[in-house]
């Protein structure tokens, strides 16, 4: 594609999709929509509760493995 072709193509493109006017303004105040979006945010996950649950599960499994050593190969198989 030579420079003439490129220039012509650019002009055609600008004819088809005219540039947006300078410094356009939204048609409405967007702050109320922003507040609605902030209110709709999902509650943050509580990692501390999951950490507690994970620790309890791990301790249970360790206790069970200590009481029934034969279960260890079964656990390893399913990991």
């Amino acid at each position: 594609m030579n420079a003439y072709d490129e220039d012509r193509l650019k002009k055609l493109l600008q004819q088809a999709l005219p540039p947006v006017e300078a410094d356009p303004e939204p048609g409405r105040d967007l702050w109320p929509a922003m507040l609605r979006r902030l209110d709709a945010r999902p509650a943050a996950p509580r990692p501390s509760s999951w950490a507690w649950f994970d620790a309890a599960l791990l301790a249970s499994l360790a206790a069970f493995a200590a009481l029934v050593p034969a279960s260890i190969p079964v656990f390893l198989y399913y990991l």
Partner: protein
Amino acid sequence: MARRNGKGEERMPNGSSDLLNAFRHGSPEAFEAAFETLFHQHQRAVYGWILRIVRNPATAEDLTVETFWRIYRARDSFQPSRGFEGWARRIATRAALDWLRSARPETELPAEIPAPATADSAVSAEIRRKIALAFQRLAPKLRIAATLAVIEELPQKDVAEALGISVAAVKLRVFRALRLLRRDLQQQGITS
């Protein structure tokens, strides 16, 4: 979150640097107030930038809110020393790019493509529509570079910063976009 109806200036420290530091490092209350002030200061610029990319006012408004939502969540990655505008522009560009990737080309095109003031009378509305449709068929990352650099004639340096790529990469994307567009138009018999 503390809800407010005003512009938030009462609780805000004076000066841009203090404002940006309050946004990044401030207490939850200072952060909320700084966010509101930054929203009011920059929403118009962010909206204008997104409108240049998506070319649809209603979509640009929605994406402006989406951009500030991402800004709100990305507080920890903000560096006050590098300024807010460029950072916000990069986030806005990413939000617009995500939208371009998810939207079907037909849904982006206005029903009537307005003729520019300097329209060539030899280029009919139908041809303009075909060109616009061919342009919409380009990959979003090529389209966004060509939109900003060719249609909007923005400096390639600004385009590169907004896209997070080098100026050379912008030139390459624009070149590829124009080459693919030309091939598409040739197949339709619009250009030789």
